[in-house]
């Protein structure tokens, strides 16, 4: 009985947790509710993925109004897989929040922080599950508005400006998306995505479809932070509280990437997007630019959090590169990297949060001698860095391997070289940390040696360990990414 309501429960549980937290108002009960809700979402998302992989598409009619008139939630291997990623990150980040938030957010705002985290989680999961174009926009705005507030909660006053800038760019992106679906609605007369996908081929390839494709692509790319639309991202990640940086870096942009994939492969279809025009070439060029330019910028950062943020923009390039290959192999690589990068970058931001708590700042110079004063954290950070580079034995290697294999299967040998070269840039920015942390003397005024509190260290280490685990045994993540890619490319039959 309950089993058939899993899709809606996944969204409703965190959505109801948010007002409950606001009513509780106290910090500790709020945290308990938030943690329980994120564990519950993972407990719902896992069987949902199981069900979607074994049984195919699950359609859930909200309020029993049959689609296409009513709003439908449509779950297949692809969105269930991304939903598992998002809720998994939630489970890692929530236990971390207890101490992390106590240190970084004013105590009277704690309950609001948890409420916003829940709204953000609920919005992201809603974007994934919904099968309705306009419903997707509403969830996009729910998660975005919550994100703006979370970023503004950072201690530094620059967090406010970062949040304001993200608000401008995010709203422009969401509005462009609304224009796109408006044009699609005018043509097809439906907002149900599956229905739209079925009706679009009969329309031929008129200019309005092309315009809709352009608006949706640019709008969603703004949310993805696809180079050169990434300008909001570095400041937003650098000045928000550490738990928020970890959560956003691992989930928000990934969910938008899923939306782009869904529109490209399921709604418009490969023939309209890739075969009839140069979308693939443009996306390939932007992905290559993303792999190199922000990576070079990352090398010159003086702040470790900003460095990681620029590295995120660069890693997004690998994912969109997988999309631009428009083959099942390329999509598998993109989805696998989505998962692996979420673990890697989320874990690194969590480790960094602990370091920042001890050192009082994230400037690279302060990290001098960290290998001696905080050996475990520094080591975990380096392991995460190795995964960013793609050293064998870490999760980053697995997805880069998929990516290179997919590029070669398409006959694009030179892309393999480009991936290598861009990885070398990652070596440089990770090495900057290694050099400062291990080969420099700690400054005279450094705080006494010691690790971050256990409640911060344990979730961070678990995430980094997961990164190694999925690097050594990629059978689960690989097969799930494969199933998700096939579901995306196969359409909603």
């Amino acid at each position, binding site marked *: 009985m309950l089993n058939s309501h899993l899709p809606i429960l996944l969204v409703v549980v965190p959505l109801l947790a948010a007002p409950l937290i606001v009513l509780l108002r106290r910090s500790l009960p709020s945290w308990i509710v938030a943690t329980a809700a994120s564990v519950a979402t993972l407990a719902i998302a896992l069987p949902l993925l199981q069900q979607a992989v074994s049984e195919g598409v699950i359609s859930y009619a909200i309020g029993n109004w049959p689609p296409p008139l009513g709003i439908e939630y449509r779950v297949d291997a692809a969105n269930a897989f991304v939903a598992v990623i998002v809720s998994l990150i939630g489970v890692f980040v929530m236990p971390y929040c207890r101490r992390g938030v106590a240190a970084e957010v004013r105590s009277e705002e704690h309950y609001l922080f948890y409420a916003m985290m829940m709204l953000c989680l609920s919005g992201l999961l809603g974007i994934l599950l919904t099968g309705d174009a306009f419903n997707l926009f*509403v969830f996009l705005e729910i998660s975005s508005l919550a994100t703006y507030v979370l970023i503004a909660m950072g201690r530094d006053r620059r967090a406010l400006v970062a*949040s304001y800038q993200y608000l401008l760019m995010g709203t422009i992106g969401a509005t462009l998306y609304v224009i796109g679906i408006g044009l699609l609605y005018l043509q097809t007369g439906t907002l149900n995505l599956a229905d739209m996908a079925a009706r679009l081929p009969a329309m031929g390839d008129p200019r309005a479809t092309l315009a809709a494709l352009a608006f949706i692509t640019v709008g969603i790319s703004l949310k993805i932070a696809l180079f050169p639309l990434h300008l909001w991202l570095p400041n937003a990640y650098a000045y928000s509280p550490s738990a928020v940086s970890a959560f956003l870096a691992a989930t928000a942009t990934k969910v938008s990437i899923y939306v782009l994939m869904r529109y490209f492969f399921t709604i418009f279809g490969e023939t309209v997007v890739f075969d009839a025009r140069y979308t693939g070439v443009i996306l390939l060029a932007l992905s290559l630019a993303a792999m190199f330019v922000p990576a070079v910028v990352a090398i010159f950062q003086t702040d470790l959090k900003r460095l990681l943020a620029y590295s995120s923009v660069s890693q997004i390039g690998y994912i969109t590169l997988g999309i631009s290959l428009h083959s099942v192999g390329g999509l598998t690589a993109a989805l696998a990297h989505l998962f692996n990068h979420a673990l890697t970058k989320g874990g690194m931001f969590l480790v960094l949060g602990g370091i920042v708590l001890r050192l009082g700042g994230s400037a690279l110079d302060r990290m001098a001698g960290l290998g001696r004063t905080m050996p475990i954290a520094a080591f975990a950070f380096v392991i995460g860095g190795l995964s960013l580079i793609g050293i064998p034995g870490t999760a980053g290697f697995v997805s880069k391997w998929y990516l290179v294999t997919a590029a070669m299967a398409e006959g694009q040998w030179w892309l393999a070289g480009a991936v290598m070269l861009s990885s070398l840039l990652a070596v440089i920015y990770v090495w900057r940390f290694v050099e400062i942390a291990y080969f420099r003397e700690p400054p005279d005024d450094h705080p006494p040696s010691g690790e971050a509190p256990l409640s911060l260290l344990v979730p961070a280490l678990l995430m980094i360990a997961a990164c190694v685990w999925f690097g050594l045994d990629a059978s689960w993540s690989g097969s799930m990414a494969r199933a998700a890619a096939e579901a995306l490319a196969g359409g909603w039959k």
Partner: protein
Amino acid sequence: MSIAGHYSYFVTILLLMVGLFIVIARSNLIKKLVGLGLFQTAVYLLYIAPGKLIGGVAPIIGEGFEVYSNPLPHVLILTAIVVGVATLALGLALVVRIKEAYGSIEEEEILALDADDELKARDPS
């Protein structure tokens, strides 16, 4: 397919571009939000205008009602208006906090203050 027949689309695009231009060109944070509001409002027009038929009424089955307007775009835009109001409220709240923290709502002055801070952080003397 005349220019007059596409009148509402031309107005929509004009409003969109005016809004976007204000967001990009103005440095005052409040004015930027005004531009953003204009940008969003233009989209409401894009949805509502095609849904309305001249002489059309609400879709009520009964005698005397023959030409119907499509009510769905109106409902969608009602939602979009709520979203727009929430965004604007949050944006204004952020501007209030920025004013408290920086003492200014001019983008250039804020960026200059940030640049000063960064110089001081690098070279404390």
